Structures are given as structure tokens and as C-alpha cells.
């Protein structure tokens, strides 16, 4: 019943793609086939339309180009047919290779066709890197805009404003060119009134940014909200969402991502950057015929684009490729691995040359220390892993509950008001605490930082005994009052972030999850690290410390604990494994910390998996009811194909089309009365022997076109799918041959096939439907939606939550 809703308007929305317009314009002119004599004389007037690949050599290309506009494309919110797309690509490739021997021009064409993939990767990397640079620089500037403005040039953020001036050691952030709002308005920056004014301006700017963001999203591109990764996962598994990767979505997502991040909300930009990169990939695909017309090849390109997106978000090309492989992609052929790596490298290199952070680093929180760690520290690291897993499971449960409430109750009717309220709460609570007032990336950067003599932040205010300082090596020190203040402020920040992120992720603005999770983990890690450090300082004589941590040696690095905590929390929420470790170690640039990171990531994944099986993205996929067949889960029940197939025992019999005995009117009635997306074609109703499978969309377009363009097609014309027309009295109206849209090789299983094998076939081949036969006769059909419902039923979930087909 809901299926109708999603096919409603599908033609309108699907034909808004540019390429549909061009195909319609180009190939409705059939005069080109008049040059060749038709092979089938009896077909008369419509040989040019049905001849396809049958006529002579010059019409070989017709075989590959769609004979009709719209045939071979998919409706919105439907699954693609991987097998058909892949075989079409192989045919195209075969054709180009065979023609390349004919002339030099054809040879060049074949070489350029092979090269087009690499050129496309290069372009994707360049565009993704440039957009990431734009986003970074703008977000950095706009975040600082909430606090003040630079008089030397309004486009400079705080750090760049004070670039040239000499500042004191303790007040290194103050310089004459940068004025806070209270300084600008009142003339001085001290005092209660100035504080209140700063507070007020901060909240006003935050509200303004977030309101602009949500209005732009609502007005121009509603698909630009949210993280984007669950939908991209579904798209890469074969689903079609038209407009999700279009140019308006790209523009709006880029612009509103900056606004959302700058408004101080507890969200990150990494997930949306993956969406932005995939949009770039999709848009650039339109430049190359090979990728524009083939949905399967396009998804290979999108996998590579996703890798480029993560690569610019973290400055981690290898991590990006692994993320694409592990989290986002469904099929990942080996060829895609190399190309993804190339795209990720080009993107990272482009971003580096734009140099958004002024020191050739790609991420704000790149760390450079290489302090050693001791084996006994694995105990606190595993504790951090357990914390990460617990927090991950808690976050997923609460966020899904909140999103479900937003989906089903009146809360969802007021998206703009919701964003306004959440931003107001976040801004009002965030300003008093300096650790929540600064942007989350800066917070993570400060937490990852190892304290040296040259740091003067509150977190590094240890009691310094200058007489015992030898050069660069700092001894371990007692915590000064600044550190204690920082500790409780960080604890408050932790509580606030844990709760506010639940309500922020999933709002109708672009929102990512990586940075808030890393922030939560980093705060927890730093708190634990400082605690362990002070414990070691005050109790050198304890057995656990005496072995390796002698008096005067600085053996505990709280910055490392923060890093491990960040990795643990991120792993607990997203359930990433290898990609997480690789991203984190590419961030640090050193191999020393792989073991702690792996220990924490594994522990957090195990703990989180024990509580709830799905990561956040899979949970959102299930919440939205996308037809995503999970590739990692085993199907372990003993059901058979005949338990799942339709029609069930009490249903009306299967709707079939006979191969040569139905009229146009009969077929139109079937199409109007049922909403199935495809119909099996059988020899006759009595024998029920299978001929092939035909798609609803192709039928509609072909019949409509035939009624208009061909002579003599009326409602009583017979439709036939065979090679030669059936014998009919000469007085009957001319017949309509639709063999070209018939799929002659549909997949079939017998009714006794175990569902394990059927699910495996669906997964590995990417099928959309599978016919069920018994003793050679057609019995029923299993679609992907039936498989998903069956799995949901056996897992005691609600089978009606699968909405799409």
C-alpha cells in the first residue's frame, strides 16, 4: 500500500535528470534506420523500432543505445538490477574493443574509454579537495565570528588575525586587531556587562546560523539534511534515490554544513563531507557516457568518491579507502580499491595545497608526539574501550528512540522550531564553559595535545619547578589549580555533550557524528589520563608504578589517553574496526600507538556488540525502512523458498502475461489494476512454463510509444514476445512485438531451495526478484522486499517497517 506512494510522481522526479531529457530528444527520431533494409519484412512499418540489433552492421550501436527513451532506466525508490547493468557494461566494452581494430579513431576511442575512469577519479579528487578546503576555511571563520571580528580584514579568523602581532605568553590570544563584540560595541572588554553582551551576541549568531541553515535546507534541497551515510550505503547497495546526489543537494549541503558547524551545535562535518564527495562523483559521472548510463559502474565511482570524502575529512587517504570498503560500499571489486586510493590521494593533495589551517596540516587536531607507553597502561586503555562501547550502545538506543519519536509524533511537524530550540539550548549552555564554547575540533586538538613548557592553557597548568628542568624533558609534575578547574569543567562538558548530541544528530540540518563522539571520548580519556598521571606522581612507591615509572620521569601522557578514548567512542558508535585504527594512526603519524588503539577499538566493539548488534548507520537504515540486505550477517534458519514466495496459499494466483495471446488492452488492465514492478511471461496460462520477465516501466513506455508512433496499434492488437508473430487471421489489427524489453534469462530457484542459498544469491548477485519454479512450472516470485521482511520476521522485528521495494 505504501508502494504506491513512492511510485507516485516517480516519472516526474526521475525524468528530471538531465540525461533523460537528452535521450528523449535524441532517439525519438527513427529515420536513421531507414537507410538499412529491414530484415523482417513482415513487420513493415515498425521494423525500425524493433529491429534493434538485428539489422546489419551499421546499426550495431543501436543495440547498445536504448531504442526507446526510458527503457532500461529505473523508477525512483527502486532497486537496480545489478546483473543487467553489469552485462550491459560488458557488452559495451566488448563492442568497443572489437571496433577498435577498424580504424585509428576507434582505437583512440577505446583507449580513452579505458582511461576515462582514471580521469574521472582525478576530477573527483580535485573537486572534493577544493570543496573541503572551502568548507574548512569558511567554517573556521564563521565559528570565530560568533565571538568577535577582525579589524584588519573581516575575512580573517581569530588565529589569522593575530598572526603578525607579538603577544604575551599567557595572553597569546589577545591582539589589538581582533575585537570581541563587546569591545566593538562598548569599547571595552571587561566587566559583567561586557560578558553579558558577548553571551548575547554568541547566542544570536548561533541562532541566526542555524535558522539560515534549516531554511535553506527546507527551501531548496530537503535531501541535504542529516548525515547522508545511511542513505549512501543504501544507494551503493543498489537503491535509487533521485536527487539525493544532485547539484542542488551539493550546493545546499556545502553551504549549510558550514552554517551548522559554525552555529556551535554538537555535530561534525565528516559524514556530510562523504555526502558532498559522493555528490561530486555523481555529478562528474555525467561527463562520461560510460558512467552516466550504467548504474553499476556509477556505484563503483561513488565508492571511490566516498573514500575521497573521508580522506579530506581526516587527512587520511588509506583510512578513507578502508572506510569506504568497510562501512559504505556494498560491492567493492579490486579495481575500485586502486582507483579509490588514487581519488583519496588527489583529494588530500588538493586540500593540502589550499592549506586551510596554515601549517600544511589537513586536520586541526594532528598530533606530533611520540612518547612511549608502557604495557601496564593497557588496563586504563581497555577501561576506555569499555566506556566507549557502553556510550556507543547508549547513544544508539537513545538517538534511535528520539528519531523514531520525531518520525511518528507531532515533533516532526516543526523542524524549524526544533532546530531553533536545540540551538538555543546548546548555545545558552555552552557559553559559560570555555571548553564547550570553543569549537569541538579545537577542543579535541587541545585534549590531544601533550603539555610542554610552551603551553599555557589551563589544562597544562602544572606546578613547574624550574630548577629541575633539563632542556626539553619535563619531569612529572603535580597538577596546579588550573588543572583542577579544567577537570571539573571538562566533566561538565562531557555530560553536556553526551546528552545534547542525542538530540542533535538527525535534525534537519547537515549533521555528522564523528567529531562529537571523538570529543566525548577525548574528554573521558583526558580525565582518566590526568587521574592516572597524578596517581603515579603521588604514589611512586606502589608496586604497579615502581617498576617503570621512577621518580622524576614523565611516564604518563594524558594526550595519548585522550586519543585512545576518542577512538574507543567512535568505534563504539560506528562499529568501525580496521578503518578506525588506520584513521587514528594516520592522524598521529606514528606506529607506536597502534596497539593501544587496537585494544581500545576491539574492546569497545565487543562491549557494544554485546548490548546491541547494529552500528548507528545500520540502525538508521532500519529506522527508515530502506531495502538494505545486510551483507555481513549470516542467515541461519531452515526455511525454504516456498515459505517466502508470493503468492501465498490464500492469495490470488500469480499475475502473469502470456507470450502471444494477450491484447494491449489486457496488459493495460493488468498494469492499472496491480502495482507490481514486473511480470513474468509464460507460454500459456495452462502450461505456466516460463519464458522471461518484463518490467512494468518498460511495458508502460513501450505500449505508450507504440500507440503513438506505430500504425495500427489499437486496444485489440495482440502483444507478442516471441521472435515470430503468431498466426492470426489477416483481418486482425497489426501486432506489437515487445521482445526487446523481455529479459530472457531471469533467475529461478526451485521451491525446495533453502532460504540460506536464496539469501546468498540475492546478496552476491544483487538480484531484485527471483522466480520460483516447481517441476519446471512457474509457481511464484520472491522479491528483495520479501526476503527482507522474512529476515525481519525471523529476527522478531517488525516486518512492516520495510517500506521500499
Amino acid at each position: 500500500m505504501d508502494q504506491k506512494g513512492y511510485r507516485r510522481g516517480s516519472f516526474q522526479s526521475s525524468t528530471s535528470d538531465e540525461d533523460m531529457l537528452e535521450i528523449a530528444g535524441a532517439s525519438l527520431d527513427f529515420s536513421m534506420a531507414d537507410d538499412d533494409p529491414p530484415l523482417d519484412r513482415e513487420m513493415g512499418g515498425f521494423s525500425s523500432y524493433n529491429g534493434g540489433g538485428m539489422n546489419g552492421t551499421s546499426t550495431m550501436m543501436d543495440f547498445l543505445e536504448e531504442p526507446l527513451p526510458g527503457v532500461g532506466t529505473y523508477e525512483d525508490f527502486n532497486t537496480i538490477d545489478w546483473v543487467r547493468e553489469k552485462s550491459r557494461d560488458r557488452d559495451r566494452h566488448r563492442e568497443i574493443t572489437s571496433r577498435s581494430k577498424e580504424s585509428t579513431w576507434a582505437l583512440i576511442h577505446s583507449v580513452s574509454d579505458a582511461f576515462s575512469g582514471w580521469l574521472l577519479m582525478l576530477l573527483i579528487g580535485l573537486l572534493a579537495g577544493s570543496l573541503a578546503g572551502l568548507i574548512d576555511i569558511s567554517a573556521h571563520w564563521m565559528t570565530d565570528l560568533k565571538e568577535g571580528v577582525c579589524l584588519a580584514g573581516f575575512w580573517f579568523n581569530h588565529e589569522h588575525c593575530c598572526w603578525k602581532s607579538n603577544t604575551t605568553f599567557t595572553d597569546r590570544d589577545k591582539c589589538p586587531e581582533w575585537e570581541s563584540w563587546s569591545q566593538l560595541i562598548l569599547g571595552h572588554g571587561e566587566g559583567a556587562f561586557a560578558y553579558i553582551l558577548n553571551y548575547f551576541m554568541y547566542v544570536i549568531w548561533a541562532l541566526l546560523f542555524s535558522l539560515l541553515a534549516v531554511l535553506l535546507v527546507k527551501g531548496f534541497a530537503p535531501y541535504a539534511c542529516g548525515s547522508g551515510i545511511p542513505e549512501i550505503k543504501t544507494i551503493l547497495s543498489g537503491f535509487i534515490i533521485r536527487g539525493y546526489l544532485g547539484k542542488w543537494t551539493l550546493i545546499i549541503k556545502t553551504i549549510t554544513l558550514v552554517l551548522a558547524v559554525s552555529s556551535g551545535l554538537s555535530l561534525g562535518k565528516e559524514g556530510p563531507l562523504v555526502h558532498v564527495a559522493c555528490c561530486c562523483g555523481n555529478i562528474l559521472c555525467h561527463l562520461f557516457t560510460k558512467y552516466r548510463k550504467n548504474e553499476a559502474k556509477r556505484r563503483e565511482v561513488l565508492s571511490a568518491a566516498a573514500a575521497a570524502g573521508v580522506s579530506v575529512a581526516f587527512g587520511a587517504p588509506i583510512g578513507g579507502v578502508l572506510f569506504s570498503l568497510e562501512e559504505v560500499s556494498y560491492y567493492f571489486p579490486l579495481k575500485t580499491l586502486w582507483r579509490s586510493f588514487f581519488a583519496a590521494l588527489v583529494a588530500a593533495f588538493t586540500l593540502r595545497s589550499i592549506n586551510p589551517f596554515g601549517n600544511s596540516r589537513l586536520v586541526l587536531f594532528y598530533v606530533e608526539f611520540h612518547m612511549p607507553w608502557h604495557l601496564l597502561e593497557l588496563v586504563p586503555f581497555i577501561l576506555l574501550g569499555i566506556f566507549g562501547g557502553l556510550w556507543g550502545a547508549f547513544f544508539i538506543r537513545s538517538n534511535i528512540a528520539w528519531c523514531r519519536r520525531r518520525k511518528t509524533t507531532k515533533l516532526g511537524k516543526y523542524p524549524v522550531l526544533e532546530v531553533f530550540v536545540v540551538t538555543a539550548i546548546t548555545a545558552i549552555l555552552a557559553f559559560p564553559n570555555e571548553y564547550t564554547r570553543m569549537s569541538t575540533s579545537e577542543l579535541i586538538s587541545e585534549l590531544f595535545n601533550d603539555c610542554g613548557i610552551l603551553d599555557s592553557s589551563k589544562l597544562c597548568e602544572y606546578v613547574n619547578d624550574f630548577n629541575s628542568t633539563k632542556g626539553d624533558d619535563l619531569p612529572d609534575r603535580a597538577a596546579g589549580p588550573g588543572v583542577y578547574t579544567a577537570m571539573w569543567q571538562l566533566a561538565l562538558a562531557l555530560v553536556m555533550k553526551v546528552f545534547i548530541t542525542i538530540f542533535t544528530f538527525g535534525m534537519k540540518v547537515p549533521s555528522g557524528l564523528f567529531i562529537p563522539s571523538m570529543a566525548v571520548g577525548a574528554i573521558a580519556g583526558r580525565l582518566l589520563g590526568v587521574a592516572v598521571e597524578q596517581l603515579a606522581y603521588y604514589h611512586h612507591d606502589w608496586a604497579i608504578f615502581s617498576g617503570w615509572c621512577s621518580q622524576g620521569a614523565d611516564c604518563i601522557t594524558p594526550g595519548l589517553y585522550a586519543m585512545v578514548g576518542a577512538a574507543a567512542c567512535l568505534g563504539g558508535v560506528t562499529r568501525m574496526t580496521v578503518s578506525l585504527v588506520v584513521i587514528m594512526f594516520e592522524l598521529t603519524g606514528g606506529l607506536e600507538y597502534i596497539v593501544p588503539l587496537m585494544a581500545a577499538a576491539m574492546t569497545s566493539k565487543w562491549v557494544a556488540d554485546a548490548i546491541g548488534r547494529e552500528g548507528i548507520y545500520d540502525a538508521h537504515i532500519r529506522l527508515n525502512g530502506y531495502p538494505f540486505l545486510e551483507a555481513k550477517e549470516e542467515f541461519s534458519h531452515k526455511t525454504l523458498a516456498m515459505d517466502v514466495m508470493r503468492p501465498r496459499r490464500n492469495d490470488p494466483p500469480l499475475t502473469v502475461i502470456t507470450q502471444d495471446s494477450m491484447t494491449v488492452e489486457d496488459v493495460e488492465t493488468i498494469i492499472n489494476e496491480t502495482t507490481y514492478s514486473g511480470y513474468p511471461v509464460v507460454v500459456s496460462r495452462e502450461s505456466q512454463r516460463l519464458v522471461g520477465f518484463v518490467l512494468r516501466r518498460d511495458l508502460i513506455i513501450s505500449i505508450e510509444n507504440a500507440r503513438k508512433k506505430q500504425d495500427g496499434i489499437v486496444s485489440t492488437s495482440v502483444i507478442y514476445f516471441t521472435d515470430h508473430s503468431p498466426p492470426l487471421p489477416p483481418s486482425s489489427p497489426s501486432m506489437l512485438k515487445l521482445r526487446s524489453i523481455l529479459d530472457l534469462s531471469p533467475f529461478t530457484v526451485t521451491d525446495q531451495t533453502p532460504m540460506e542459498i536464496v539469501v546468498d544469491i540475492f546478496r552476491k548477485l544483487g538480484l531484485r526478484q527471483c522466480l520460483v519454479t516447481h517441476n519446471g512450472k512457474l509457481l511464484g516470485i520472491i522479491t528483495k522486499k520479501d526476503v527482507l521482511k522474512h529476515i525481519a520476521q525471523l529476527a522478531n522485528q517488525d516486518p512492516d517497517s520495510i517500506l521500499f521495494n
Partner: protein
Amino acid sequence: MAARCGGWPRLCWLLALAALAGLGAEAKNSEDVRCKCICPPYKDHSGQIYNKNVSQKDCDCLHVVEPMPVPGPDVEAYCLRCECKYEERSSVTIKVTIIIYLSILGLLLLYMVYLTLVEPILKRRLFGHSQLIQSDEDIGDHQPFANAHDVLARSRSRANVLNKVEYAQQRWKLQVQEQRKSVFDRHVVLS
């Protein structure tokens, strides 16, 4: 490789990204390099940060820290604790990026204001009420064949460029409306 560069928006994109990428490489403004020396507190001198516009080989404590706060023999001990780093940036890139961003944002806001406030007023004045009602119709697949008719009818030539723009805009508006329904009203995608 049939490069179907359909339309000026794509060209615009490529030009913009080329500009951005190109800017990253150029503009070695002499104002944009610095050597930053951080010197921690020493004895009774407070800590200070020094910035100076020197080349990379001159980026050390002796060239940058001026005036030297400590007398002669202590200079070496003082300088040992200082850390000097050479940094570069491109202020032109920053300026251009921010201006591009703000102009795109401004254009989008103006367009939004135009669509929500100005256009209905204009339309009402020119065409009367009937046009408005038509554009609000629900798109339905009630008659699949009627919609197929639309699929095939796209090639109808529109000689007038203005008509083409109007037609594209109408189509885009319908698309956005459809998306808005799925996301905001029916909550089927992106909840």
C-alpha cells in the same frame, strides 16, 4: 568518452574549482610568511611570543627575538628553551574563499526571498489566480499511462529560451516539493 558537458553550471563548477586550486599554489605574499618563536618564562622575565617576517633559514631565536630581554651570557640558555617554527599561509586564498562563500550564501538567500515573496506577487499580477492553483496540484501516478506520456513528451521543442528556463524552474520546484513531502511530511527518507 563523449564529454557531455551539458550546460553552463558544470563549466562554472570546473572554473571555480580550478580557481580555488590555482590560488592555493600561488600568492607567496611576503606578508604571509612568518617565523614564530615561543619563549617560556625565564627567571623573572615573563614569557613572550615573537613573530617576524624572515626566511626559513633565518628562523631561529637569535634573528627573531628582538629586543633580547636577557643580557649576553644568558642568551644561550634563554634561546635553548625557545621554540621557533616557520609558518606560511595564503591570505589571498582565505579572502577569496570567504568572499565566494558569502556571495553564494547571499545569492541563495536572495533567491529564496524572491521565490517565497516576490514571485507569487508577480504571478498574481500577471496571470491571475488560475496559474497558482495549477502549480499546486498533487503529482500522482493515478494514470501510469498519462505519466508515460510525459516521459515521451519531453522532447517537444520549446523555441523560446525563456520558456525553457521557466520550464526547468517549474520542474525543479516540483522536484523540491516532492522531496520536501518525503522528508518533512511523510518522514520516509532521512527521518
